[in-house]
């Protein structure tokens, strides 16, 4: 019997007095409710669970993720990936802090220090590694450092790594001059008004440590570091705040030299800009991970992480965003382009890169970020 016949019969009973008006309207309402929860509307509502939110760095990085990972993943699994962007890890943690559990799911975090901060705030989850078999192909050193923070368990999988080195315009600065001056080029009076800098307190302090001859993971003379940051500020045209802004400032030749993210510089080089890139000794190395926040739909997230760690997706994304993948070159053939990327380590040991010590940086985060904020504004 179809629904219209059921309705006709009910109407007849109402008209003949078998059913009172209140019962008739009640039954119509109940029928409407039943229809609502059992039809395409309900399907749409239930399918919302099959959605994962991913937040990353925007620009060419997000484009690479969307094209090479999210779209194929959605096609293969039916799980939709909603991708958002952030300008810095600090901005993202602030958003997460203001959100409800489950509102944000996966983030493309940079550095172990951020991972540790999330753990301290009680925002980490526990991944079921059995659901991520591709994790076995990841460089062990990258995995172990995260395990150390979260008591042997993981709330993320390493995904890529890179460096924050120095980008320079070869029309105005030669390769020889760069080799000679290294990090001190950012304090060169000759380039006043043509120097840029990331408005990230860690990067500023790291480079000031290099400029004052100190260990960036154990600086002892902070006065010298603040002094170097002030000198840099006075020579600066602008602090940049995103990868897109960095690329624009270099491409438009507003600035000739700045510290920069290796992948973004490679993207500029691919576009034909004569921009050189150099990692000075003890340059800032970092590893990025795909971090799953507490309260996320774990199975879908683990499914996505495993998909992204597959050699096909991982290599395609790496080639798109220009950062080497976390896959171990000893276990996976990474193709032709990846070995040409800046910061790539063919041994998979990453012994040539200096990473930030999370305890050291997080322990000083409150005081140093505040102090840098003041110096940045002319104090």
């Amino acid at each position, binding site marked *: 019997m179809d629904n219209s016949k059921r309705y006709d019969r009910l109407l007849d009973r109402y008209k003949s007095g078998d059913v009172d008006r209140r019962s008739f309207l009640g039954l119509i309402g109940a029928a409407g409710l039943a229809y609502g929860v059992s039809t395409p509307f309900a399907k749409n509502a239930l399918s919302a669970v099959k959605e994962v939110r991913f937040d990353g760095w925007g620009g060419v990085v997000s484009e690479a993720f969307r094209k090479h990972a999210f779209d194929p993943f959605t096609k293969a699994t039916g799980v939709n990936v909603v991708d958002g962007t952030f300008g*810095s890890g600090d*901005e993202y943690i602030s958003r997460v*802090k203001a959100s409800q559990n489950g509102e944000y799911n996966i983030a493309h975090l940079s550095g172990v220090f951020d991972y540790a901060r999330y753990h301290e705030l009680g925002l980490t989850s526990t991944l079921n590694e059995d659901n991520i078999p591709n994790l076995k192909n990841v460089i062990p050193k990258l995995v172990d450092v995260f395990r150390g923070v979260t008591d042997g368990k993981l709330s993320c999988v390493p995904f890529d790594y890179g460096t924050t080195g120095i980008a320079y315009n070869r029309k105005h600065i030669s390769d020889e001059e760069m080799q000679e001056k290294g990090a001190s080029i950012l304090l060169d009076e000759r380039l006043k008004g043509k120097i840029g800098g990331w408005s990230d*307190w860690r990067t500023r302090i790291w480079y000031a440590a290099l400029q004052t001859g100190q260990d960036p993971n154990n600086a002892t003379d902070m006065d010298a570091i603040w002094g170097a940051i002030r000198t840099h500020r006075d020579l600066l*045209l*602008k602090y940049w705040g995103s990868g897109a802004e960095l690329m624009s400032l270099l491409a438009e030749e*507003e600035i000739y030299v700045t510290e920069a993210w290796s992948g973004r510089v490679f993207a500029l080089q691919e576009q034909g800009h004569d921009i050189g890139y150099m990692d000075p000794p003890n340059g800032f190395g970092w590893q990025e991970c795909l971090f799953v926040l507490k309260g996320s739909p774990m199975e879908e997230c683990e499914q996505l992480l495993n998909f992204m760690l597959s050699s096909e997706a991982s290599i395609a994304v790496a080639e798109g965003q220009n950062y080497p993948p976390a896959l171990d070159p000893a276990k996976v053939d990474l193709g032709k382009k990846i070995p040409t990327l800046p910061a790539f380590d063919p041994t998979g040991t990453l012994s040539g890169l200096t990473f930030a010590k999370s305890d050291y940086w997080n322990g000083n985060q409150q005081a140093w*970020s505040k102090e840098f904020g003041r110096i940045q*504004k*002319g104090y």
Partner: protein
Amino acid sequence: MARETREARQPWLLLAPALTTIFFLLVVPVLFVVVYSFWLRTANGSDQPGFYMTNWAEVVTDPFYRDILFNTLKIAAVTTFLCALLGYPTAYFIARSRGNKAMLLMLLMLPFWISYIIRTMSWINILGVSGALNSLLLSLGVIETPLQLLYNEATVVLGLVHFLLPFMVLNIYVSVEGIDETLEDAACSLGSTRWQSFLEVTLPLSLPGLAAGGLLCFVLAAGTYITPLVLGGPTDAMFANLVFEAIITQLDWPLGSALSLVLVAVLGALVFIYNRFFGMAQLMKGLS
């Protein structure tokens, strides 16, 4: 009596949805911010509830915040002055023009169709080293190397004027439009020149509109953080940037709350002074 009571209730009934919305979406969140300002930030970025005066003591006693606040007020004042200078002739022209007022007003509103951020960023393409202006000057042979025009206080003011000018023009326009034109003619017939009749009659009568536009421009300029972020140099930060930094970069929501309340208090005081001398009615007229 019952009818009087009903009539007395009617405005409140009509206002109830708006007042409820304002209460829950403005008053309650502001109260949260007030409470937050007395909390503390712990080392790992979480908040420590309680009643601490630490943030307030820091904001009030630290010259860093005071200096940035004065700089913000200075930039807002310069922006407002320039908006008035550029906006008055424009508004006067529109108000006194015959026939094409609607089109001129539509042109004035056109910029609002484009995002404020996009409008601000457009200056990079105009004033940048390889932007339109430098390209033109280079091609005309006026300069040999591109001028560095961006990322200073002047470009911040320029971006703000670009953003706020329509607010000023609209307010002055409403005021000038309401002035009886025959008053100027009467002044002229009594021997004053056109310029004198403008100074003695039109300008004084349009001052409330000018003040309303000034207030809007000042408040909006003082509260901006996008413009200095996009067009400013290293030392061109405004007070709202401090709030952004405290909350976003430093994850110090309690301090950020105290800072934002200081800004609200300063701008609130300005609105209070305006209301004392001109009344809020003129502002509403300008917005309508």
